[in-house]
């Protein structure tokens, strides 16, 4: 049940407000002065506060400031009198949600409180949604593109499971970062994350790397040694470039995936472990199966939760976001004065197709920082590869005719001073059109409009409130 605090020094008025709200589903507390209100706010959390700005021991503004400074999660409704509208507006600037002018009717009080609480709830939903959808960085990733939001969402879901994850994607797209993110987000995070690059280890040593060996198993095996599977017990085993794994070893891996048991090289005793397997490849696994280089049964064992990492060229503004991060990091590391990229450099970065993905971008930025020392990264500092791009060939964003707007543009914008469209009307048209174009997906619409989803939700709520006021 929502908790409401009424801060009102006139006990008769406070009692009247309580009477107005007695049939509403709220728990009401009253405070007759500022000090009592502060004490109550310190000990109890409220969903809404009705605040009389004239109190005997302090200004109501002091309480409003306290609530704001402490970032208290409550909607403040200021109670004011006619002729004190300026004060009410000042209060709204200090984050008061609404104001009521005395004399206050029962209906007005109930509607205002209901709206404030609904707005509060909506803000919680938006915050939660924003935390889940509108993320700019996540477990080692940088980027807020839609493609990456989807990756973050899958990682969130996949992390709680033990199911095997199969990550595909071009080199440098962050497959290992993704595997680490799944591990960090999972309940296995306090155990080992063991990564093996199947392409970097000689084939004859790979089995020992994964499963370990006993003393004397092969020449040079002077002592017993645990492999990655044993070290990852309770944690995660990441097998990168799995497409490079020898077919014989794939058979052993299949058995390991099926039974969670393995034998060290040269041993006769089986070892049982609790390991979550994540594997990755930059190759097309189906092509590898068709070419006979990858076991189909192993593929279907591993391909339980597939994740495809998007190439950098498909990550929109992430390119600039990541470049800025690298610029700041390397400028600090190298003690250089770099601060920003010139606009035309940003255009080139956005237009380039980055075949080496984030790793290539990282190298380019590091190269610029190491070899130069200026405040701005200008075109002249770009490595030759990027300097060869003709800026005139950089595609500009095509403006599509919005399907939502059927009328010619002049009929909307107006062609005489009297018919000129109002800014707020145009804003509404633009937002509604974007929502329509994006199949009613507000976060997506917000993304393409370059605003936060919270802004759209807030504006929609305001329009709804406005239309309700107009119809009553």
């Amino acid at each position: 049940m929502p908790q409401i605090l009424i801060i009102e020094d006139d006990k008769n008025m406070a009692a009247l407000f309580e009477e107005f709200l007695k049939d509403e589903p709220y728990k009401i507390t009253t405070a007759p002065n500022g000090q009592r209100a502060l004490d109550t706010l310190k000990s109890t959390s409220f969903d809404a506060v009705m605040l009389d700005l004239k109190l005997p021991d302090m200004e109501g503004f002091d309480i409003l400031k306290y609530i704001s400074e402490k970032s208290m999660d409550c909607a403040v409704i200021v109670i004011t009198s006619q002729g004190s509208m300026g004060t009410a507006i000042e209060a709204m600037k200090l984050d008061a949600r609404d104001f009521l002018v005395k004399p206050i009717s029962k209906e007005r009080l109930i509607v205002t409180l209901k709206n404030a609480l609904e707005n509060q709830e909506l803000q919680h939903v938006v915050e939660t949604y924003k935390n889940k959808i509108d993320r700019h960085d996540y477990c080692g990733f940088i980027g807020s593109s839609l493609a990456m939001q989807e990756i973050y969402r899958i990682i969130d879901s996949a992390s709680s499971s033990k199911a095997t994850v199969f990550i595909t994607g071009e080199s440098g797209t962050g497959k290992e970062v993704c595997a680490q993110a799944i591990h960090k987000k999972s309940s296995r995070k306090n155990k080992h994350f063991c990564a093996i690059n199947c392409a970097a280890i000689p084939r004859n040593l790979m089995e020992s790397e994964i499963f370990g060996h006993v003393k004397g198993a092969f020449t040079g095996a002077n002592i017993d040694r645990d492999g990655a599977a044993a070290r990852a017990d309770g944690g995660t085993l990441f097998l990168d470039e799995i497409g490079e794994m020898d077919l014989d070893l794939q058979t052993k891996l299949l058995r390991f995936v099926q039974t969670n048991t393995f034998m060290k090289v040269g041993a006769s005793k089986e070892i049982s472990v609790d390991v979550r397997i994540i594997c990755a490849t930059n190759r097309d696994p189906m092509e590898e199966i068709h070419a006979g280089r990858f076991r189909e049964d192993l593929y279907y064992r591993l391909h339980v939760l597939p994740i495809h990492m998007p190439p950098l060229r498909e990550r929109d503004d992430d390119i600039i976001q990541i470049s800025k991060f690298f610029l700041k990091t390397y400028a600090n590391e190298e003690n250089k004065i770099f601060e920003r990229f010139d606009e035309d450099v940003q255009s080139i970065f956005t237009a380039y197709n980055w075949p080496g993905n984030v790793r290539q971008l990282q190298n380019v930025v590091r190269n610029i920082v190491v070899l130069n020392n200026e405040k701005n990264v200008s075109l002249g500092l770009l490595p030759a590869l990027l300097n060869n791009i003709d800026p005139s060939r950089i595609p500009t964003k095509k403006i599509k005719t919005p399907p939502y707007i059927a009328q010619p543009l002049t009929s909307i914008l107006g062609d005489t001073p009297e018919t000129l469209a109002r800014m707020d009307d145009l804003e509404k048209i633009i937002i509604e059109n974007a929502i329509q174009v994006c199949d009613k997906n507000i976060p997506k619409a917000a993304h393409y409009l370059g605003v936060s989803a919270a802004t759209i939700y807030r504006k929609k709520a305001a329009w709804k409130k406005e239309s309700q006021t107009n119809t009553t």
Partner: protein
Amino acid sequence: MQSTNKDAAIFDQNIIKQLEESISKSSVPKFLHLFVEDSSLKQDEIEQALFDSDFETLERINHTLASSAITFGAVRLHNLCRAVEFNYKEGQYEQAAIALKDLPSLIKVSNEAINTYLESNYK
């Protein structure tokens, strides 16, 4: 400066009728009695604050009394208190003191009107 509006009703029954529609009718006398009691107390507080030349308190009490007066139908009292509050806010202390001379009699007639209403409607 606002006027005290001598033409305004001392007691507007319509405001109480609206209140009776909002809350249970049986609760209304309780609030009216409380207002009558409280306005007399506030009059004492105003006199004390006048004696102390405590203008801040005078502004605040007139603000509070103005708000409760309009809620319980004492329209002329509301107008007077609101005007006095304004005077204090603007530093017009002399005008406020002159206006306050009418306060005791206005509280008295307002309370009498409320009591009459209570007697004729809540016997």
